[in-house]
C-alpha cells in the first residue's frame, strides 16, 4: 500500500463521509420545510440517522463521520425556521430517550460480556492497568 493510496482512502472516508452527511442533512431539512407535524419530523430524523449511516457504509465511507455531520444540520439557524418550538422540544425529548435507552442496553450487554471472556493472566493485568491510566488521563 503506497502513501497516495492511504491519502486517497483517508479522503474518501473522512471528507466523503462529511460531504454525504451534509448532503443528506440538507435534503432532510428541505423535505421537512412547509409542514408542522412533529411526528413527521421525528420519522425523518430517524430515517436520516440510519439511512446516512448505511449509505455511507455501502459507499465505503465512514458512517460515523457522516452521521456526526448530518446531526448538527438540525441545530443550525436555518433549521430554526423549519421547526417551531413545540416540535423542536418533542424532537429533543424523543432523541434523549433513544440515547438513554440504547446507553442502558449497551452497558448491560458490556456487563454480560464478561461471561464470554476466558480468564487469562494478560487480560486481568491489562484490565488492572486501565484503572490508573484512566485516572491519569482524565482531565
Amino acid at each position, binding site marked *: 500500500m503506497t502513501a497516495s493510496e492511504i491519502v486517497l482512502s483517508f479522503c474518501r472516508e473522512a471528507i466523503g463521509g462529511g460531504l454525504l452527511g451534509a448532503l443528506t442533512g440538507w435534503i432532510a431539512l428541505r423535505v421537512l420545510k412547509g409542514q408542522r407535524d412533529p411526528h413527521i419530523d421525528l420519522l425523518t430524523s430517524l430515517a436520516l440517522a440510519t439511512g446516512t449511516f448505511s449509505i455511507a457504509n455501502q459507499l465505503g465511507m465512514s458512517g460515523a463521520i457522516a452521521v456526526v455531520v448530518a446531526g448538527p444540520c438540525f*441545530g443550525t439557524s436555518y433549521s430554526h425556521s423549519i421547526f417551531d418550538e413545540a416540535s423542536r422540544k418533542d424532537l429533543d425529548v424523543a432523541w434523549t430517550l433513544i440515547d*438513554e435507552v440504547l446507553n*442502558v*442496553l449497551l*452497558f*448491560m450487554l458490556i*456487563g454480560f460480556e464478561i*461471561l*464470554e471472556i476466558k480468564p487469562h493472566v494478560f487480560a486481568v493485568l491489562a484490565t488492572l492497568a486501565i484503572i490508573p491510566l484512566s485516572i491519569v488521563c482524565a482531565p
Partner: protein
Amino acid sequence: MSSGGDMDTISLLALLLTLSAGFSILNHHTLRIPVTISVLIFSLLTSLMVMILNPLLPACNLQAFLRSVLGAINLPAALLNGALSLLLFAGAMQVKVCSTMAWALSFSVSRSGCQPEEVTK
C-alpha cells in the same frame, strides 16, 4: 431449556429490556447512582453469580444459555453497525451550530452572528 440461538428477535429484545428495567428499578430502590453505571454493575454481578452458580446447578446450564444469547446479539456488530448511528446522531443533534461557531470564532474574531444568550446556553 431452549438455547438462545433459536430465540427470535422480539424475545431477545424483551429479555434485554426486561432485565434493564429490573436493574434500573433495583437501582432506584437501593443505590441511586446514574442508571448506566448501576446497570453495568448489576449485570456484572449477575454474570458473576451465574458463573458461581453454574457448577452447582448443572441441570439448567445458565451459562451456556446466556452465552448463546450473547452470540445471537453479537455485541461488536450490533454496536458498530446499529446503535452507533443512533447514539452519534442523538449526541450530534444537541449541538447548537451557531454557538459552536461563535466559540470557535471567538479566538480570532471578537464579533459573531450569534446572539450572546445563545452562546451562554
